[in-house]
């Protein structure tokens, strides 16, 4: 029991740490977004508070905390207070299944860099992400404001429309890796590019890493596009189209409750970027490290004496810690790149019209994802049963 209790406490602390890490990444992303947009539009952006305007984050937080706790009179009070939490919860729960790095061992205890190692990982993420609609619908309805309701309606319609295309685009990836487990998917993407057709290996391309994008390029484009729609960001941010709907479903929210919607949105964005990294870009595995995580571990085994001496750890434990840090850095770099692309696209593309948005979802992306699925299946079928 004592050991189980210790494990429980350690894991709870780990969960809380990951949660607060995600929550505190949000202001950083907001800063990048504001400075980045200013850079792209040839402005200065927030640069007064602290070096490079970095303390603006703290100033914003203080402002959020010291706002008047405003509740509109016509609102359905219980649901009005629940909606921000309902928005935050799915975002955090999806991120829980993301493997951030390889596990490491300290003092005989192995810790996974992941809140929960769920064996149906990818389907779980889609399941929980589909619950994100509730927060938006509840916020829009409980505010008793026509702008909120219209924004919520648009947002939920858009999210469910793109969910179909997103779900279908993933099928090709599952066909390739034959697993739902995200860690196993990363494991399948290590090593050099390995494409075998009828017993012939594609040698000339073996300098490429064995990433999913080279096997499922159409799925990547579809998934990436649907990611924008799922997170309600430009060019698909019609639910918040300020020219028409004031601020969409969170029109009536202010202070910290509004901040929680923001956290939810950026949480979804982070999960989306992390999923793109894992499914199509090798996850935390270093590219061009032929043996994958095992090779990194071997490298650190012979180069970690300085750490094992300073912290009095065994050589293998020190190596596992350094491997974890390496992979975490690699994962953060890849994920950071895609987060930047999200921000970049936001300040580059104009907004869609609503009918264009729905046409894109149902009449372009759905047929394309079906075609991608059909093509992948047919290729696999003919690789096995060659009619020639």
């Amino acid at each position, binding site marked *: 029991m004592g050991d189980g209790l210790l494990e429980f406490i350690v894991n709870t602390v780990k969960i809380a740490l990951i949660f607060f890490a995600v929550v505190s990444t949000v202001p950083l992303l907001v800063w990048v977004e504001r400075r980045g947009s200013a850079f792209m539009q040839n402005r200065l952006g927030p640069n007064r508070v602290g070096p490079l305007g970095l303390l603006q984050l703290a100033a914003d937080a203080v402002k959020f905390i*010291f*706002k008047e706790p405003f509740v*509109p009179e*016509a609102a359905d009070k219980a649901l009005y207070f629940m909606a921000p939490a309902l928005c*935050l919860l799915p975002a955090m729960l999806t991120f*829980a299944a993301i493997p951030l790095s390889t596990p490491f061992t300290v003092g005989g205890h192995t810790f996974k860099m992941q809140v929960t190692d769920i064996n149906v990982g990818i389907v779980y993420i889609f399941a929980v992400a589909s619950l994100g609609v509730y927060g938006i619908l509840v916020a829009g309805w409980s505010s008793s404001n026509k*702008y909120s309701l219209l924004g919520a309606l648009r947002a939920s319609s858009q999210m469910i429309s793109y969910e179909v295309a997103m779900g279908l685009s993933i099928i090709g990836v599952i066909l390739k890796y034959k697993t739902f487990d995200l860690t196993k998917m990363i494991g399948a993407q290590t090593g050099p590019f390995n494409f075998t057709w009828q017993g012939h290996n594609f040698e000339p391309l073996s300098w490429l890493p064995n990433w999913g994008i080279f096997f499922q390029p159409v799925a990547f484009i579809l998934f990436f596009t649907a990611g924008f729609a799922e997170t309600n960001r430009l060019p698909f941010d019609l639910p918040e189209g300020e020219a028409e709907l004031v601020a969409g479903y969170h029109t009536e929210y202010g202070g910290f409750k509004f901040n929680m919607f923001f956290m939810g949105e950026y949480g979804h964005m982070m999960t989306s970027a992390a999923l793109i990294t894992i499914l199509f870009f090798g996850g935390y595995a270093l590219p061009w490290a032929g043996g994958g995580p095992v090779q990194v571990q071997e490298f650190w085994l012979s180069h970690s004496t300085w750490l094992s001496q300073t912290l009095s750890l065994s050589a293998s434990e020190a190596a596992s810690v350094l491997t974890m840090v390496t992979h975490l850095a690699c994962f953060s770099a890849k994920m950071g790149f895609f987060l930047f692309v999200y921000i970049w696209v936001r300040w580059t593309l104009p907004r869609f019209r609503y009918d264009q948005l729905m046409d894109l979802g149902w009449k372009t992306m759905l047929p394309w994802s*079906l075609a991608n699925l059909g093509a992948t299946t047919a290729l*696999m*079928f003919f690789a096995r049963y060659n009619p020639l």
Partner: protein
Amino acid sequence: MIQQLAPILVLIAVVVIFSVVAIFLTSLTGPKKNPTIAKQMPYECGVPGINVRTTKFPVKFYLTAILFILFDIEVIFLYPWALVFSDLLKKSPFVFIEMMIFMVILTFGLFYVWKGQALDWD
């Protein structure tokens, strides 16, 4: 099972506690509530708001949600199929044919929806 489920439950608890504490504490730290009639009304851009919602919503929104349910079922059946496809394919091509029949029948449905202008938004 417990190793997978317990962290999710703990995380739910963490998020709920965080939300409750944050919303409760910020309602204490903020300035006193100062409700005025204009502030209490639903937000409107500069003109007095109307408190009733009589907006009619196009039936298109429901239709989108209904179609989503039906295609979502399709996706749910495709997930396990994709998982075992290459294994079952080694035994017989039947696994390919059965899904093709399934997909063709549902593509008829998509075709009907498309031609029936249920996907048109203008």
